[in-house]
C-alpha cells in the first residue's frame, strides 16, 4: 500500500464520526487522483460478440455474504454471480432510499435486462461475475489501489469487453 493510501485510511478513520467533513475530504482526495489523461479503450467489437458486466454502488450482496459498513464507509466489494435470482439479493446501504431497488434491483443491477439482450442476440454474453460496492467510501486509497484493481483482474480473467457502472 502506498504512503498516500495509508494516510487516506488514517484520515478516513479519524473523520468517520463526521460524515460531512469525511465526504468533502474524500472528494478532494479523489480529485487529486484523477489527474492526467483520461484513460481510453475503444470499443470496436460487435455487441453481439461482446461480454458485458456491471459494477454498481447499490450495496447489494448475497444473503450469505457480509453486509457493508455504512457508518465508517466501506471500500470492499461483493461478487454477484451473473445467474443470480435478483430477488435473493440483500441491500446494506443507508445513504439512499433502497425501497425501489429492493422492489426491482434492475434499476441498479440490470441483470434481467441484460439477459434479455443476450436472449435476443443483441449482446454476446453476460459475465459470470458482477460487482457491488456500497457508495459511501471515504477510503479512497483502498478503493483505487486494492478494490478497483481486484475487480479489474476479475473482469480480465472473465474476458469482459464492456463494463456498465451504475451509482446509487
Amino acid at each position: 500500500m502506498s504512503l498516500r493510501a495509508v494516510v487516506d485510511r488514517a484520515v478516513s478513520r479519524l473523520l468517520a464520526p463526521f460524515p460531512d467533513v469525511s465526504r468533502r475530504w474524500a472528494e478532494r482526495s479523489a480529485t487529486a487522483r484523477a489527474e492526467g489523461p483520461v484513460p481510453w479503450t475503444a470499443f470496436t467489437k460487435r455487441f453481439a460478440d461482446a461480454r458485458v458486466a456491471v459494477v454498481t454502488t447499490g450495496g447489494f450482496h448475497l444473503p450469505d455474504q457480509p453486509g457493508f459498513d455504512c457508518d465508517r464507509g466501506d471500500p470492499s466489494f461483493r461478487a454477484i454471480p451473473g445467474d443470480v435470482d435478483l430477488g435473493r439479493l440483500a441491500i446494506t446501504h443507508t445513504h439512499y432510499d433502497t425501497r425501489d431497488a429492493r422492489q426491482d434491483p434492475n434499476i441498479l443491477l440490470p441483470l434481467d435486462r441484460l439477459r434479455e439482450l443476450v436472449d435476443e442476440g443483441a449482446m454476446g454474453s453476460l459475465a459470470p461475475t458482477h460487482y457491488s460496492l456500497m457508495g459511501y467510501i471515504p477510503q479512497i486509497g483502498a478503493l483505487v489501489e486494492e478494490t478497483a484493481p481486484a475487480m479489474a483482474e476479475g473482469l480480465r480473467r472473465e474476458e469482459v469487453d464492456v463494463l456498465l457502472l451504475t451509482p446509487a
Partner: protein
Amino acid sequence: MGLVQRVIEATGVSTVSIVQVRAIARRLQPPRALYLHWPFGHALGEPGNVLQQRRVLWEMLRDLRERPRAEAGRVRDLGLRWRRETYAPVDFGALDGKSGPA
C-alpha cells in the same frame, strides 16, 4: 466510482457510467459518463419500467459505440426527465449496424 471506472478502463475494458452528481463527474472525468437528474438509487429508472430501463441501457451502449476519443472525460446530459417521459421500444440491433424490428 469515477476513479474505479478510470482504473478499469486503463486495463483494457471499455466502460460507460451513469452519473447523478455532475460536479463530481466533471472533476473525476471518467472516460464515458452519462448524466441523469433522477433520484439517487434509480440509475436506470423506476421499478418495473422495462422500456425505461432498456432505453437507459441503449443510451449506454450507444455511447460506447459512437463517442469519439476526443470526448473522453466529457459528461453527456441524456436530458431525460424524471417521470415525464414516454418510453418507446429501442432497436439494439441497430447499434451493431443491423436494422430490424425494434
